[in-house]
Structure formats: C-alpha cells, structure tokens
C-alpha cells in the first residue's frame, strides 16, 4: 500500500532537527534509515504529518572510543556493525547480533538509534544494549541527558523520549578480557521478527551478571532470578535454571502462553550454554 501524504524535511544538524520537532499542532516523526517506520507508514499504521530526516546528519554518525567505552552514533547502521566498520566493544557479540537483524538490504540502512528509539518488542538492539550496560545520550530543547538503556526503554514502542528530543548515540562499556557472553534468538525463518531472544553477559570483573530477555509482550527486560543463580553457581544445573526462568517469566512476560514460555526458556538456556561453554 502507499502511505498517506506527509511533508518531508532534511535538516542539516541536530539543533535544526530539534527545532523542527517543536510543531505542536502536527504529528512529527524523526526518520533515519526508515526500515521500520516506512513499513508502518506504508501499512498506514502510524499517521505522520511531517518526517524529519536525520539519517545524513554527520554528528549522529560520530564514533569514538576510550579504553573503557565505545560510543556509537545513533545513525550507525546494522551493516557497519556487522562488517566491523566501527569499533566493537563487545568481543564479537554486537557484530553477530547485527548480522542476524532482518536482511542485508535492511541492515544497509537501518540504524541502531532508530531501533532503540522505536522500541519494537522484538528488536535486537534494545535487549543487546541492556545486556552490555549501555547508556543512551539524548539531546532536546532543554539540553543533553544520559540514561541507561534499561531505563530508557519502557514498554512496547515506548521510551522516555520526549517531544523534541533526539537520540545522539550509545555509550557502550567494553567487555574485559575473560568476559563470557551468550546470545540466542528464535525466529520462524532467518531474518524474521524474533519470537524470543536472550542475552547473558558475565563480565567477570565483579560487575553483576546480566540476563536480558527480549521479544516479550512488552519490552526487553532483565531476568534477575536467572542472573542471581548464575552469579552464585560456577557449576550449573539445568533443572534449577528452568525454575529460575519460570520465576522470572511470571514477571517479565506474565501473559505468555505455554508455547511462548518454551521459546523463552529455550533462548535463555542456549544463551547460558554459550556463555558457559
């Protein structure tokens, strides 16, 4: 289907984009790669009066690194992460995640900032960045703020992003040598939306173990019972992990049916096995 009519502008910088978002009588949306938003527009699921194209703003492509962190600008594409075109703070996790997002033609345009800002429940980056302990950098009319991705994403297509705010990028802590990670997702065919995804990260430097479940009915969330079990047990017992998963699922995806609970249990177990392999 063709989308309903809308206006389109392409501001030269972030300040101009923020100013353009301040049109209270209109439904205004940012667009970067457009690989999710243009689908929603074509299906006429998201009414928009004005698209503000931020996909070519240089500041949003900023990439920088320190000894402890890598900052990826919001307009970094999945393909750039897949191909190693930007520094990898995650010892191979992020390139692998990127390579399994949708299809190459989508990955050439879709951006990490767009993925997190849209907050589709089945998106890979919100869950992955939560597991890595990343922080979002956001700028709006009132200035700049920083917020952990775990707090930034609040529900299905829901974030703390306020009208007029733009995600600048993500500050991602480097995994230290010896860190262990595992990731798994279930899709009905490669590249399709996930039915479940799980990330396990054990940094091994005293930081808490992180276990994140994505593709729930609402949004990616930590699984504290599983994380606590892993942090207390070097030798793991599958039956005990299954109990911990069941306890967490009652909280993070309470409406999941038996099939969906099996999907979630499978991805968590696979991610743990990979991390502990």
């Amino acid at each position: 289907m063709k989308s309903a009519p809308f206006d389109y502008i392409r501001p030269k910088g972030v300040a101009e984009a923020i100013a353009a978002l301040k049109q209270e009588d209109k439904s205004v949306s940012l667009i970067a790669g457009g690989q999710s938003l243009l689908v929603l527009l074509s299906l006429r699921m998201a009414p928009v009066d004005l698209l503000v194209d931020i996909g070519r703003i240089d500041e949003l492509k900023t990439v920088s690194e320190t000894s402890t962190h890598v900052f990826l600008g919001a307009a970094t594409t999945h393909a750039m992460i897949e191909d190693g075109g930007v520094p990898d703070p995650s010892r191979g996790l992020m390139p692998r995640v990127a390579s399994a997002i949708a299809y190459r033609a989508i990955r050439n345009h879709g951006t990490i900032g767009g993925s997190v800002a849209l907050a589709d429940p089945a998106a890979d980056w919100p869950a992955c960045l939560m597991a890595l302990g990343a922080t979002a950098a956001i700028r709006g009319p009132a200035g700049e703020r920083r917020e952990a991705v775990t707090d930034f994403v609040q529900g299905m297509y829901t974030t703390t992003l306020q009208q007029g705010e733009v995600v600048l990028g993500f500050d991602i802590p480097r995994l230290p040598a010896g860190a262990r990670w595992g990731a798994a997702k279930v899709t009905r065919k490669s590249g399709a939306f996930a039915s479940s995804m799980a990330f396990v990260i054990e940094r091994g430097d005293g930081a808490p173990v992180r276990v994140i479940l994505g593709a729930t009915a609402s949004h990616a969330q930590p699984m504290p019972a599983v994380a606590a079990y892993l942090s207390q047990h070097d030798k793991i017992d599958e039956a005990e992990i299954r109990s911990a998963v069941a306890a967490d699922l009652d909280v993070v995806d309470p409406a999941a049916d038996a099939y969906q609970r099996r999907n979630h249990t499978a991805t968590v177990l696979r991610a743990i096995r990979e991390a502990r392999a």
Partner: protein
Amino acid sequence: MLTVTLTINDDEQTHTIEPRTVLADLLREQCGLTGTHLGCEHGACGACTLEVDGKATRSCVILAAMCDGRSVRTIEGLHDDKIMEVLRRHFHQLHGVQCGFCTPGMLVMARDILRRHRTPSEKTIRHELSGQVCRCTGYANIVAAIGAAGAELDRDTGA
C-alpha cells in the same frame, strides 16, 4: 511537492515528486525503469531490491526524497556488469527462473552476496537470500545458480 536530483544508472536526473513517493515508484512511474518490481510494498518480499550508493536497498522502504544527491543503480543499469553477466547465464542454464517476478531482486541480491562472499557455501547463500521471496521455484535452482556463478567468477579471477 519536492524537487530531487539523483544519479540513476550513471545519468543525473531531476524530478518533482510527492514527499511520500518511494524510490521504486519514482523509477517505475517517472523514469520508465520497470525492471524494479514491486511486490509487497512494505519491505517483506525483496522484489524491489536495487543499489543505492553501491549498497543493496529495498526501494519500497526508502523515500525518493531520501535519495536526493545519491546514486541509484537498477537492474537495467547492471546490464553490462561482469558479475551480472555470469549470474544471468547460470540463472538461465540452471533454471533459476519461473515467472520472473522476483528475478530482478534475486539477481541484485545474488550479485551483492558474491561481492561480499567470494565463494559462498549453500548455507551462506540461503541465509543471505532469506529476504527474497520466490513463490515459484522452491529456491533450489536459484541457490545452485548463485553457487555456480561464484565458482566461475572465482576461477576467472585466478584465485
């Protein structure tokens, strides 16, 4: 209405478009380039795949306005391309075509696969091709044709 200038198959062109016009509609309806096929019009089938700035792109989920100043190459613009010549021949010989609707997108994506993976395994081809929907062939002959084209190109470049 918006005015955009973009390079289409090496030819710089200026067009006046509605902001909502996707690249595929500009090419088909204003440029007469109907080799780009529109199947689903929402990024699910891959039929409209072409290249923007040298990168595989679904032309139904990119606005023509977003391509202002960029370079677009369609299946028509790949007529004399070496990889495409080899791919076309193997698609023909191994019968990687039935109705032909998905074929332009398949060929563009196949070329992209061979540029990124020199001699891809069947598993790699199937993974990389999973975004292209074909309702006729069952994919087996398409996968075989891409593998055969990769092998021939690899021999020709004397690796």
